[in-house]
Each structure stands twice: as C-alpha cells, then as structure tokens.
C-alpha cells in the first residue's frame, strides 16, 4: 500500500518500504538501533524480531553511505527472533551504545539481551520484579540503566551489578494507575512518565538533603547525575529518587511521552498524547532554587487525530529538526508536526 503525505510545509514524507514481518499477531512496538541499521519489533505473539536491510541490488558506487540519503532499496530480512516471553511483548528498546536490547511483556518480565556479532543475542537477564504487565522499557541516554513502566502503577530502574547480574535498584511509586510510557531527558538527569491516571510526572535523583534544605528556606538545586549505584562513592553524597513534577492537564489516559532537545534550551521539550486526543508540548527549564520543575505548556493541539485516541509520540532525533515530532493514532495515520507553526 502506497502511503503519501499532504502538507503545506517544506518537508515531504513518503512511504519507503513495508516489511511483511512473520509475526503472528499485532506488531506493538518498534525500535531503531542507535546506528540506524537495525530495527527491532515487539509483537503480541510474544517474540521480538530483529531486522536488517539486505544489500541494495541497484546500488551504484555512491550508494549506501552512512547517514546519507537514508535507506536504500534492499529488502528487509529477519536476522533474528528473540523468544522467551510467555505472553504479548509490549515494548523493545536499544541501549545508547546499541550493545543491549531490552524487551517487556504482559508476563510481568523484562528481558535484557546482549547484541553480539553475527546477529547473535545472548540473554543477560530475566527480571521478574513487577507484579503485573510491563508496558514499556526505556534506556538511559548515557548509562546502561534501564527503566520499566508497568500495569502495577510503578516504575523500576535496573542496572548490571559488577558481579554480573541485572537487578532492580529502585522503584518509583506515585502514579495511581498503569504507567504506559517513559522518556529520559536528553541530559539524563530526569525521567518522564505518562500514565492511565491522566498525569505526566517527572522524576529525578536528588541529594537527600535537598528537601530539608528547601523546607529550611535555602535556595538549592541538588539534582544529581544518574549513575549506576555501584559507581557512586561516598564522596558523591547520598541521593534518593523523588517526583519533581506532576502535570494534570489530560482528560483521559496518557499513552505516550517523548522528551526531545527542543529549541528553547534548558532541559528540552516534553510531548504527551493520549485518549483525550490532544497533543501537548511542554517546555522544561530548571529552577536553580528548587528541584521542582514547572513544565510550561507551549503548544496544545486538540483532536490531533480527529476523534481518535493518539497512541504514540516521538521527537525527531536529528540535529536541526528538534521542533519536529510524529504522532500515531487509532485513525491509522502517522502525522508529522512542527512546533512553531502548530500545524501538521
């Protein structure tokens, strides 16, 4: 099926290729590897598919340059299938370095795989910490730290212990219902979560003296870098995870959140979408006197997909396009937006 776009902007989009996966049920989520050559698919059939593009048969000597001219015309092939989940797989994500892949499922587990040469994948851990379905996984933008969001209303963070076992080192509680989606800030010091409880929340690792200092009237921002617990030395102080913001604008469940660099500096822009059909974009700036954040709504597009739920949102990661994002909805369409004009 040929896809096409209609828009009045300088950007044009056209459907490039369709991969007819062999998944037996819905393909729920997709994730690009950081190098942009490999695609992972998460399916309700419980498997994760790994796809790479074959050689372009029509390539001339200029074809196939990294980062140039996008994809070639080669066929996409399945180079691996990761089996193990017992029920629907909901989300899949590559770590920042591309050497790790995480998947999660209604079977309550999070699986961590190591990406090895020749399309080999080794299971590094099966984490059974949540008490209900795990809806999403998100890797920290720099560290090998994984976050997961669940039907059990919590968020868990995991890291690889030096003695080589993955474990959950903290649980973030606060949401009153399912956590559907997670997004780390580009700087890596904050984590945003979107929930069925209609709120968007932001979490940070702060110096334990931060709250006491604020209560005592001291002006202090003591948000700490997020690091694997084993790397923290006593000189770096004790920290704890706290909720630094709650945004209650949505009228129905929020299904997806994305955090991009934006064009206003600061911590960037957070986009959220959900069952009320509205696309909301917030500008996030740090307050030097407090760990609390006050996201500022800069764009609100009601009925972004007409009467339909908006299920996903994602910022363009490409430099120069920090004001461009994509949304997907139950109307079956993908929409590309630019923030300054507020038009699709």
């Amino acid at each position, binding site marked *: 099926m040929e896809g096409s776009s209609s828009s009045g902007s300088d950007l044009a989009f056209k459907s490039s290729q369709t991969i007819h996966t062999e998944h037996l049920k*819905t393909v729920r989520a997709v994730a690009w590897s950081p190098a942009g050559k490999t695609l992972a698919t998460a399916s*309700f059939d419980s498997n994760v598919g790994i796809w790479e593009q074959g050689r372009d048969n029509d390539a001339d000597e200029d074809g196939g340059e990294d980062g140039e001219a996008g994809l070639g015309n080669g066929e996409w092939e399945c180079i691996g299938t990761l089996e193990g989940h017992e029920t*629907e797989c909901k989300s899949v994500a590559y770590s920042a370095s591309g050497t790790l892949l995480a998947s999660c499922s209604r079977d309550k587990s999070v699986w961590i795989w190591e990406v090895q040469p020749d399309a080999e994948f080794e299971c590094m851990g099966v984490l059974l910490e949540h008490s209900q379905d795990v809806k999403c996984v998100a890797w920290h933008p720099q560290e090998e730290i994984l976050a997961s969001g669940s039907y059990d209303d919590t968020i868990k963070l995991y890291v690889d212990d030096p003695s080589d076992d993955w474990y959950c080192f903290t649980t973030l509680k606060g949401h009153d219902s399912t956590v559907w989606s997670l997004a780390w800030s580009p700087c890596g010091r904050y984590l945003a979560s979107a929930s069925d409880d209609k709120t968007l929340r932001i979490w940070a690792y702060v110096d334990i003296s931060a709250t006491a200092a604020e209560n005592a009237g001291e002006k202090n921002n003591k948000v700490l870098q997020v690091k694997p617990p084993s790397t923290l030395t006593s000189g770096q102080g004790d920290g704890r995870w706290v909720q630094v913001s709650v945004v209650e604008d949505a009228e129905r469940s929020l299904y997806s959140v994305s955090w991009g660099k934006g064009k206003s500096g600061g911590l960037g822009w957070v986009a959220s979408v959900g069952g009320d059909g509205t696309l909301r974009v917030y500008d996030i700036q740090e307050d030097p006197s407090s760990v609390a954040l006050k996201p500022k709504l800069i764009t609100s597009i009601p009925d972004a997909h007409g009467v339909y739920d908006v299920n996903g949102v994602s910022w363009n990661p490409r430099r120069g396009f920090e004001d461009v994002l994509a949304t997907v909805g139950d109307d079956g369409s993908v929409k590309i937006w630019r923030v300054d004009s507020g038009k699709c």
Partner: protein
Amino acid sequence: MSSELFNANPTVFSSARSASNTSDTESDGDEVEEIDQDEIFGLIRTIYDPEHPNTLEELRVVSAPQITIKRNHIVVEFTPTVPHCGMSTLIGLSIRVRLLRSLPSRYKVDIFVKPGSHQSEHSVNKQLNDKERVAAALENPPLVDTVEKCLSKPSPILQLI
C-alpha cells in the same frame, strides 16, 4: 475448567418491551443526533450471559439507568449477579465489543462494575479499561469465540446521521 457455574441459580427478570421510537427532535441534515441511554441499552440488553440462556437484561446485569452519556463520553455500569462472579471480565468485554462494533468512532466508552457489587472490583475495572489488554484479548481466538457466542443474538442496528 470446572463444570460448576459461578451462579447456578440466577434470578431471571422479564425483559421490557422494546422502547418505542421517541425521537422527536427535529434535525437538519447537518446535525449529528446524539445517542441516548435507551439506545445504548438497546445495543447491550440482548447480549447473552456466558453461563445461562438469558440476556444481560433478563438477569438485570445491565439497565438503562446504569448508562451515562455526556457529549461523546459513555459510561456503562454493569452488575454481576454474584460478588465472586468470574465471568465479569468476559461480560464486560462482550459489552465493549458490542459497542465498539455499533457506535461511531467519536465515542469513548468506559465500563465499570457497579461499585460494591464485586469482590475484585478494581481488578475487573482495570482490565476492562486497558485498551491494550482488550486488543490482545481480541487476538485470542478461543476468547473471541466465547465473546461471539454471547453476542450471537442479532442486535438492533443503529441508524445514525
């Protein structure tokens, strides 16, 4: 699967005669008619209980007063016949599927058990209103077959402008 029913002896009520068409609103060609409680009830009253040859109306599981509509938001409350009813999620799913197939896309539907009527009220409500759980359930052929059996009595087709 146990051969014991959750509620072997449900109370069966008689169903009301179909509500007469009381649409007396003049609508010009461009206006969309709002759906009312009775029309939603009309869609779900004929759904069969999974365990008995009775409709949800006859068992007083659904009723018109338990349906709320505000603009495009519909809330359907249903009452399981017994507090430990293990068929509740299936009944709720049948209601959802019937409405999904019959209503225009603009309606958002929430389905809850009547507060206090079920011992796992929160758990049942959460499952019924998680659209991913619902979508996955509808990709499960044996479950879909069971839902289809509950829906197999033809329902009135809503003609909407």
